[in-house]
């Protein structure tokens, strides 16, 4: 039975359970990989530096994130290259 009152008083996007779930998701990713958000930032900076030795990249658009699939984590890097034309 779902009553009107139940809907009004019921779940919404900012419920404490949703907060718990979001927070746990982040904590578990970092527990499983042993990578802190700080580690991830410095990894990104060093990756940008190394790749820039070989090819021009758009550092501002570069993204690094950890994706979760079941209990497996994958490090995903999205590194847009600058086209040769913009070189001088």
């Amino acid at each position, binding site marked *: 039975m779902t009553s009107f009152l139940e809907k009004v008083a019921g779940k919404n996007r900012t419920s404490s359970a949703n907060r718990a779930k979001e927070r746990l998701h982040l904590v578990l990713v970092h*527990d499983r990989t042993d990578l802190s958000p700080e580690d991830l930032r410095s990894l990104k900076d060093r990756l940008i530096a190394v790749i820039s030795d070989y090819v021009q990249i758009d550092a501002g658009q570069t993204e690094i994130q950890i994706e979760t699939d079941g209990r497996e984590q994958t490090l995903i890097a999205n590194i847009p290259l600058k086209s040769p034309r913009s070189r001088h």
Partner: protein
Amino acid sequence: MNGKVVTITSGKGGVGKTTTTANLGIALASTGDKVVCIDSDIGLRNLDVVMGLENRIVYDLVDAIEGRCRTSQAMIRDKQFETLFLIPAAQTRDKNAVSPSDMVRLCDALREELDWILIDSPAGIERGFRNALAPSDEVLVVTNPEVSAVRDADRIIGLVEAEEKGPAKLIINRINPGMVKRGDMLSADDVVELLAVKLIGIVPEDEAVLVSTNHGSPVVLNEKSRAGQAFADIAKRLKGETVPWMDLDEKDGFFNRIGKMISGGS
């Protein structure tokens, strides 16, 4: 006989491992299976009082391992079920009195005589946990729908996998359906999604658990208890049966009660 060793563990303490072990022991023995429950929480003996067998202890786990008694002498027979036994933890020793290979040797001998060897693991990820995990064929991880218990469960599930004892199966204990409905408690689906493991049981929060523990008579013996029913279902799933998930909303929550009052239900 070729008994199965099932380890009940958790990471965080106080989530319901001992309660689960006692109830699964009874539920399995009530079908005629031969079962031994081992309390491996050395120094913090607990399973004996939950099973109501504290007055019958003569020898304990460490006595059996160190050869001061035969294994059968350390097995206390249950008051009600002929095929249920308890091997109590030593109370005055520390967890280093037992090693993982001691547990493997003991359980290999027990496998010959019994259908099920249930090991109640201590909390934590140290020696006591390693002891409980070493002989295991199947690992049940107990958690509560609460951030720190879920986080610790994740850690344990990872360690179980690393030791090649996985995949662990999950028991979510102390779900309060009213709070889940209000959005103030993680739902079973949320927890399963976060931990990405197979679920084997959802046990509701139930006052009958404490009452039955007061009597030393586990809640699965109480046919009216929802938690008791949930533990009985887990035992069936362990035996390979397919059991539908219990409707947790039934008999619960303010709105349901009102609904039932209006429609004249009980």
